[in-house]
Structure formats: C-alpha cells, structure tokens
C-alpha cells in the first residue's frame, strides 16, 4: 500500500512544477494586462476616448435629441410610427424610462468616461519621454470626461459620478450624486485640465476654460464664469469668423472661431457623422431620416429672426430645413461635417451672460450681432437683458445643442415648452428619466428622478 500512496502523490508533485503552464495571456489581442505600459500606448488610448464622442449615443445622434429637439427650435416630424415614435415621445415630454435612446445615451457617455478614467488611473505609473505629451493626454482625458459629464448632468441630472477605472463592475459603488455635485467635479477637473493643456491643439487650454465658463453658468454661478471666459478672450487665439457660414463644413475645420469640435470624416471607414442623414434635408436614402428630416424646424423659430439677419440663410434652407450641417455624403451615416461644440461666439455670449447687463455685456452681444449684419443694441432697446440675450443665443447658436440648456438655465423651459406644445407646465419635465435598465441593475443604489 505504501507504493500506492506514492503514486497518488505523484501527480500533485507534477502540478507544483508547472505553475507557468496555465498563465497565458492573449497572443494577438491587446488587453489591459499588457497595454497602458508606454507613452505610445497612451497616445493611442486617448484617441479611443475621443472616439466615444463620435458615437451615435453621444454627439453622433442622441445629444441632438435631448439638447436640441427637446426644446422649441425643432420638433419631431409628427405622426411617427415604429422606431421614430419614441423620438416623438422625447419631443413631447412623453418618454418612458425604457426608451432605448435614454439607455444608449447613458451607455455611450459612460463608455467615454470609462476610457478617460482608465487613462487617468494608469498614466502616472508610466514614465514618458515627454512630460508635455503626458500633460496633454491627462488634460485631454479630463476634458473629454468633463464634456460627457456636462451632458449627463444636463440631461439626467442625478447620475453616478465615477472618476477612476472600475475594475470589478459587478461590485462597483455607483455613487449617484446630484447635478450640482457633478458640475462641481467638472469645474475642478477643467481647472486642472486648463493648466495641463497646450494653448493650441485638438483640445486647447482655451477650450477647457470656455467649457469651464459654460459649466459655471449652467450651475448658476455667474461670478465664477467670468474669469475663465475672459482668459479665452485675452488669449487672442480665437476670433469670430468674418462670414457666419464659414464655421461649418469640411473646408472650415481650421476656423479660428472653433475651440472644440468632434471630428468626423467620410470615406465609409466608420468615421462619418450621422447628423446629415438624421436631421438635414439631404440625407442619403437608407439613413433614418432618409432625407426628410425627423427634426422639423418650428415656425416660431423661423419667425424669431430679425429682418436682415445674415445668419438665417446659413442656418435654414429655402424650405426651412437645417442648413448648417448640409453635406452630400455618398453613403448612409457617413458625412464629413464635424460637430462644432465650442466656438468663440458662444464664449462671447456666455461672457455677456456672466457679466450681466451693462456696456460690457452689450459690447460682447454686439460683436456677435455685427457679424450677422445687425445694428447694435443697448439698454434702450425694448425687452429685458435676459430676453435680448436669450434671443441672440437662440439664433446665433441654433441647432448647436445649446437651446435646451438655455431654457433650463433661465427658468423658461416649463413656460416656453408648455405654450409651444399646448400642454400643462406640470407635464414639462426638466430632467429626462434615468434609464430603467440602469435602475434595475442596481435598484438599491440608483433612484429615479422625482419628476418621473
């Protein structure tokens, strides 16, 4: 029997000799164990974070639905059936928490945030040959994360605030916080980013400062918004384009007015923009809009232009469809037109809002009006300062995802939308519902917005 016992032990001895035999990493696939080790790894990874901004769940399609179509400049075509019926519900404040657009927006936004978080959580352990490159990548990651959190904060309000790589998703702490806390985090991050970023580039220190000013305004802190916005102006890097229409389109990507744009390219390599197919008149057959634009411009918006406003022809086509992002893509969802998210005219109008009524404020507004071929306004022009400012923003920044946050910030969302849609003010919800599936997956940690 002694011999038998020895045989029983034999295999166990073999096992202890071959520990490495089962330590296998992916051979041909990049993975989190062997990646994020060198400067060039991070140079590629940061592009992946920007890629999240192109997604249909973010600037590609969905942010337009929430930030623009929801408001009074445009509405859903109406009488929609099938898939487009949910867009109509979003337009009319009738969406339900299971609407697919809510969840896809949530997922795509957090995907980008996670990509930035992975970079930020790992970059300090790696030595770079260039500190400038390291600083730029950190600044860009903070900027991308901030831009996405700004949208989540405006759209959903009370969202999980995750600022580090999540390594065990099934046990993560969701940390659902108020929109105000989200905005505070963004302000901290953008302040850091501004110090890290170069003065020019795909994300400049000016872009971070401009977004910081916007975030302060949206959070109701006008006083804090002034300084970063003035830093953009005094940097003299940016200026208004002489001709309003020259801000958009494939030939104008280097415009001095653009502080930050989400880049797209045609060529059917998966880098095209869906916007043209979704929301303009010349979409390619096969696109969801099919060229007939589920986003219909409201008469109220068309009527809001002053006579002689040069911006009208650049914004609207003769048949009153969205002209700003016109393109002639040859394949569905493959337009070359970049999404211009931050431009100098917005900086000026934000600054006018931050400093309040006075010669300085009218001065910023009048810079924008002059380019539009309109006479200067001042305190004697009829209407309140807020109304005049809001009007200017509406026509200057039309279809640029600024109208819904404008209405929210000025406390006008309920009255404007109720009267436009002919519904009760109580039906106009200020926040979108948190996607039901995100509550279902962690019902103890996530709660629905009170309005829903």
């Amino acid at each position, binding site marked *: 029997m002694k011999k038998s016992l020895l*045989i*029983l032990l034999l*295999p*166990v001895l*073999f*096992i202890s000799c071959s520990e490495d*035999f*089962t330590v*296998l*990493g*992916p*051979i*041909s*696939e*990049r*993975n*989190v*164990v062997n*990646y994020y080790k060198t400067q060039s790894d991070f140079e*590629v*990874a940061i*592009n*992946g*974070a*920007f890629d999240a901004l192109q997604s249909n769940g973010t600037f590609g399609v969905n942010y337009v639905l929430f930030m623009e179509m929801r408001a009074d400049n445009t509405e859903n075509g109406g009488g929609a059936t*099938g898939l487009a*019926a949910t867009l*109509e*519900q979003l337009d*009319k404040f*009738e969406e*339900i928490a*299971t609407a697919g657009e809510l*969840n896809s927006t949530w*997922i795509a936004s*957090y995907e980008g*945030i*996670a990509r930035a978080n*992975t970079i930020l959580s790992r970059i300090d352990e790696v030595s770079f040959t260039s500190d400038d490159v390291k600083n730029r990548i950190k600044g860009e990651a903070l900027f991308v994360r901030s831009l996405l959190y700004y949208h989540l904060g405006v759209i959903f309000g009370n969202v*999980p605030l*995750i600022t580090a790589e*999540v*390594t*065990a*998703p*099934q046990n*993560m702490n*969701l940390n659902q916080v108020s929109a105000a806390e989200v905005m505070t985090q963004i302000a901290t991050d953008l302040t850091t980013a501004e110090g890290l970023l170069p003065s020019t580039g795909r994300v400049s220190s000016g872009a971070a400062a401009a977004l910081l000013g916007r975030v302060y305004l949206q959070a109701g802190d006008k006083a804090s918004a002034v300084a970063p916005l003035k830093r953009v102006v005094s940097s003299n890097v940016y200026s208004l384009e002489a001709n309003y229409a020259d801000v958009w389109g494939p030939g104008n990507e280097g415009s001095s007015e653009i502080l930050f744009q989400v*880049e*797209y390219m045609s060529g059917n*390599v998966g*880098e095209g923009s869906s916007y043209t197919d979704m929301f303009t008149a010349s979409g390619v057959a096969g696109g969801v809009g099919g060229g007939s634009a589920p986003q219909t411009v409201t008469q109220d918006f068309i009527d809001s232009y002053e006579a002689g406003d040069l911006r009208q022809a650049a914004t609207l086509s003769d048949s009153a469809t969205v002209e700003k992002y016109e393109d002639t893509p040859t394949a569905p969802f493959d337009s070359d037109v970049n999404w211009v998210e931050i431009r100098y005219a917005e900086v000026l109008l934000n600054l006018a809002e931050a400093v309040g009524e006075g010669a300085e404020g009218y001065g910023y507004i009048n810079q924008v009006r002059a380019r539009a071929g309109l006479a200067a306004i001042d305190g004697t022009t009829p209407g309140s300062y807020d109304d005049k400012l809001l009007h200017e923003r509406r026509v200057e920044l039309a279809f640029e995802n600024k109208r819904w946050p404008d209405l929210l910030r000025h406390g006008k969302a309920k009255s404007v939308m109720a009267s436009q849609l002919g519904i009760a003010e109580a039906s106009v919800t200020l926040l979108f519902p948190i996607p*039901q*599936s*995100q*509550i*279902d*997956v962690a*019902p103890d940690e*996530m709660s629905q917005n009170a309005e829903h």
Partner: protein
Amino acid sequence: MLKPLSITLIIALTASTALAETFNITSGSTTNAGNNFNGSDTVNITGALNTGSTANEFGIKTDGDKNTIILSTTGSIITAGIYADGIVNSGEEVIEEWSLVSALARLNYVFQDKYLLTATIRSDRSSRFGANNQTGIFPSVSLGWRANQESFLSGVDEINELKLRGSYGVTGNFEIPNYGAIGLLSGANYVSGTSQINGVAPSTSSNADLTWETSYQMNVGVDYALLNDRIYGSIDYYTTTTEDLLLFVTVPAASGFDVALTNIGEVENKGFEFSMTSRNMVGSLNWATDFNFAANQNTVTKLGPEGDDILSSGAAGARHITRIGDAIGSYYGYVVDGIYQSQAEIDAAPVDRLVGSGGARPGDFRFKDINGDGEITSDDRTVTGSYHPDYTFGITNRFEYKNFDFNIFIQGVMGREVLNLSARHLKNGEANVGSYAVLNDRWISESNPGNGEHPRADRSSASHGNNNRPSSYQVEDGSYVKIKNLSFGYTLPDEFLNGAFSRARIYTAMTNVAIFTDYVGFNPEVNLQANSSLTPGEDYGAYPLSRTIQVGIDLAF
C-alpha cells in the same frame, strides 16, 4: 404546428476567406496498481497526470507584409467585397491559446462482488480563470450494494437484479472564453483632419478572481430487473447544487461595460428520474414498452453579495429575471388583467405610467397593479413563467411479429412556458401578412370584444396602451406531446437473400409525425438563446420543424 415536407434551398456566396487551425498537445502518464488480495476483493488504484494545451487560429491568413493573401483569388466573386486585385484591405488574424493541467487519482474497491466503492479525486488548473483562482479540486465517491447477491435474496427468483447505489461528487465547469478573466481592448479609432488615427478602448472587463463553477451532486438510485428480466430499469433521485455560476451578468453601464463575466449565485436542481422497460408479450408477437419519466425543479438559492436580482435581455429587451426562489432566467414582466372595454373603464383604472403619448384606448390591455399602490409602474413587474418544464416523459412501443416490426416513440414536455417574441408583431395586426390566426379573436369594439384574450389591432401600440411591453401576453403555454417517430419494417426471409447478405430489411419511417400543443408559434421546442442560461425559452421567428419521411433498405453483409 408541423408543416408538411419542407424543402430548403440554400445558396451561399461568400467574399471572405477564413482559415481555422487547431493544435492540440496532450501529454499524459497513467500509473496503475492492482492487487487481488484474496480473490474476493479487488483493489485498483489509478494515478494520472494530463496536461493539455490548445491553440486556435482563425481569421484571414496573410503573408508577411499583411497585404497579399496566400489563398488564391480567382473569378470576380472575391473582388466584390473585401479584396481588390488580390490586395487585402481588411482582415484580421486572431490566435488564442488555452491550457489545462489535470491530475487524477482513482480507487476501485470491490468486496465479495457485492459491495462496490469507487473514489476519485482530481485537480484541474485552467488558464482561462483569473491568476488568483485557477485550480479546482473535484473529489467524488460512489457506493454500490448488489443486494440480490445476498444470501437472503438468493432464493427469490422474481428478482434478477437489485442494486442500490449512492454517490456524491463534485464537478467543475470551465466553458468560458479563453481570456474570460482578462479585459480585452479593441480598436476605437478617431479622426484628425482628413485622416483616421488609431485608438483603442477596453471592450471587456477583467476579473482576476474568476474561478471554476462547481457542482455538488448527490444521487441515490436503484437498478432493478424483475420476473426473468421481463421488467427492468432504474429509479434515481438527485440534488445538484451549483455554486459560483459562470454568468455574463448585466452590470451598471457607469462602469463602462454592459456585461461582465463573473462567478455569481447558486442554483439547486432537484429531480426524480424513472425508467422502465417492460417486455409485455414474448413469443411470436413481441411487444416491449420503454417508459421514462423525469421531473426536475430548478431554483436559484443565492445571488451576489446582496442577493440582488439579475435582469437579462435576450432578443427584445429585458424580459428575464434570475432571482432567489425562482427558476433561473424566469420570464419577467407585467401581468395582463383583461382588456379595457370602454373609456370609462380606463379612467377608473389605476394610472398606467407606461402608456404612450396617445393614452390607452378601449381594446388595450389592462395591466395588473401587483403592488397595489394605485398606479402601474416598473415595480409592478413579476415572474410570469419559466422555460423549465415541470416534467418530461417518453414512451416507445416496439412490436415484432414474424418478419414485421413496428415502432412508435411519443415524447412529452409538460409545464413549460415559451416567450413568444413574435407575438409582438403577429398578434396585433402589425404584420402585413402571416399573422397568427388568434388575431381573428381580437377586441374590435365593446359590442364585439372577441374572446377577451387579445387586444385590438394596433400597429403603433407604443403610442397608446403599450400592449407590447414585456408581459404575460407573450408568455405562452409551451407544453406539448409529440409523436416523434414512427417506423415500420419488414425483414426479408433468409431464403430470399441467397447468402448475398446476412440481413436485409425494408422499412419506412416518419419523424415529427404529429404534435399536440396550444402553442401558437411553429415549434414549442424553441430556444433562441440556447447558449445563455439567463435568457432561455425565447421564440423570435424560429423555423418550423420539418416532417421527414424515409423509405429505405438496410443491408448487412
């Protein structure tokens, strides 16, 4: 429903080329030691060590510069898609590898040909699991007692065999992707000016603690043969507890991921199995009946650290739930509580927060206020059924008379529900053609309310009563009894064969002869997401079963 003979013609043209190669390296050593002590007991000890490693390579094979394909391209078919002039402008090659180290020791002990003992212990280490948790140890022991060998039964001629069995064993499951524990990255390219620039981003999450799914099975049973082997079979009772289930569970998207492969929860399967073969008539007419019956109960007993439910999405949104106390992957949704007959009825009902912009109309479903809070919200969802049947059975009857033989096999599955996702289009008038016949029984007006089970026709119910929300309406009784096989044969007498063949039998057989079920879809045996235990039982346009008729000759030389 069974359709008569169907013909499927598949013409496939493909413009991609793929190679699959598998390399298997297995080395092993086995040592046996046996000893007969005194003729009445036997000991057998086996020790074995096995190491295995497998590499799979698939994808498009290219030569060194990754530009020219090795496989020749001829004709115009290939240039249509991916290739132009033999140049590959897209393609990838993926190489994967996995390894398993196993050690096994087994002891067989038989005493006086009456008492049997087998004990096994094995240890497996798999490369697929997290670096911290690769090894699993799986012991098992089984005992047998051949009672009919005992002297007190030796005189009982009616009992030909009576063996009592008991076993307890542990087994492991490692059927997960090769790099299931390691977060993978995939391409996430961006644009700079007019050029595409490379980017990467995490696509799956890591789990360094990922480990074996382990099942603990207890089984007791009896093998019997009675009355000169006229009746024989077995009876078994088992309980299996499976811990650390390897599941792709939905995780909060705030993590950056939709799903994560994780060890979570515990499922218990309890069941009873009975099988019997009875040779009813022996002689010139032989008639034998095989009967088997199985009942199994599947219950989730533990889930996650806090026991949170797992909601899972199959082909059409979150319609499954895995929760403690119910079967894994049970159907989850609202409960239909009749049909609104009038606007007054809608106005008086609890407020339904899920109806669309146009509001519910007469003819739309009334959903049940499960929690009784006076409104219909997502909290009013509940378990509406399960794919796990209450019991299954099979009966085969075999007849032989002279040279003729006849077999019939009947199969039954009872107490199973199917989630008919096609119902969302084929019961509400949305489909232009091919709707289910039950559409004829739909609600048309208050005075013509149909049979009270089907709502009004509505192609955009999302804007109205939202009748297509996950509900008991799509959960249908999938129980069935089926005549699965019939065969009839004639064996030619030897004198016809002239020695050319040792046996020749002419036969005709039919499969899927008839099915008896209330299920409205084509086939209640459907399971669209067969590889996901969290989303079983979905039907979304599955093919009908074809009935086959065969005529043939069996020849033996």
